[in-house]
């Protein structure tokens, strides 16, 4: 009994250690457990940074939302957010409201809105790599499109 438990624990520990070594980004490691509030990012330099920041402010003005990541690509803008725990019952309503407000204020932009943890995590990872200069504009755009494809798979 004790022997079996020991094996299970050691397997888990080795798994965790080996996995964490692969990871290079630091902040995204805990992106699901704590508030990260990454800087809003655009894939192309000098293309609408202010706009992205204003989008982020608008989303953050929602009381139910506490953590926002915004990535703007050539065509589409990805908005991912976390909803406060007790407000998660109203997930769908919040998403609807958010869509409405964003479309009203930025009629020219195309938005993809998601509250999925996975999308959030990938967005944070993308932002981080971009900030560290590990990604070129083109690579960032490609990655963003992959993430956007992922969101369309869910729906």
């Amino acid at each position, binding site marked *: 009994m004790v022997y079996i438990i020991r094996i299970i624990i050691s397997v888990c520990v080795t798994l965790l250690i080996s996995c964490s070594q692969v990871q290079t980004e630091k902040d995204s490691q805990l992106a699901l457990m704590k508030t990260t509030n990454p800087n809003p990012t655009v894939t192309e330099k000098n293309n609408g940074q202010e706009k992205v920041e204003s989008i982020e402010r608008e989303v953050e003005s929602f009381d139910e939302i506490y953590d926002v990541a915004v990535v703007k690509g050539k065509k589409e803008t990805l908005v991912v957010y976390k909803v406060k725990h007790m407000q998660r019952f109203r997930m769908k309503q919040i998403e609807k409201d958010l869509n409405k407000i964003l479309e009203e204020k930025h009629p020219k932009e195309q938005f993809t809105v998601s509250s*999925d943890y*996975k999308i959030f*995590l990938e967005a944070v990872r993308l932002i981080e790599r971009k900030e560290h200069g590990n990604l070129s504009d083109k690579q960032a755009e490609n990655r963003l499109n992959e993430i956007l494809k992922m969101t369309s798979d869910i729906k």
Partner: protein
Amino acid sequence: MASKQKKMTPQQQKYQQLQQKHELKRPVLKNCIKAFWVGGLICTVGQAISYFYIYYFDFTEQNVGNPTVATMVFLSMLLTGFGVYDRLGQFAGAGSAVPVTGFGNAVISAAIEHRTEGFVLGVGGNMFKLAGSVILFGVFSAFVVALIKTLLGMWGVL
């Protein structure tokens, strides 16, 4: 219970009252607390596994459930085979029976039990002895709910 008691003779009822006095009651509150903690612990493990899949594989929050459930069932099957899960069940009661691990336990315990009757008639025929009704009524109730939703959709209520 009331209708059941009517059928009994006065002698039977009298005896049952006497027997009730000696009968040991299940410690309901204690069992609830144990079930709460063990059930919560199992769910925490499940949450950790689903985070693991979100972090290191391309699963989103929406579809991470499938691999998580499969892993949890697999783990409970291992524990059943090692003879640990039935002891956990005696301690935790609903705490270990209600999560999906309890389902894995029900399947594999029946399979182990009837191994001696061969693979086809024994394992194959009895594997879902306990879990079969869960599957049947699960599928059936899902069907009924889907039917209601479809009908409501057709009538324009939803």
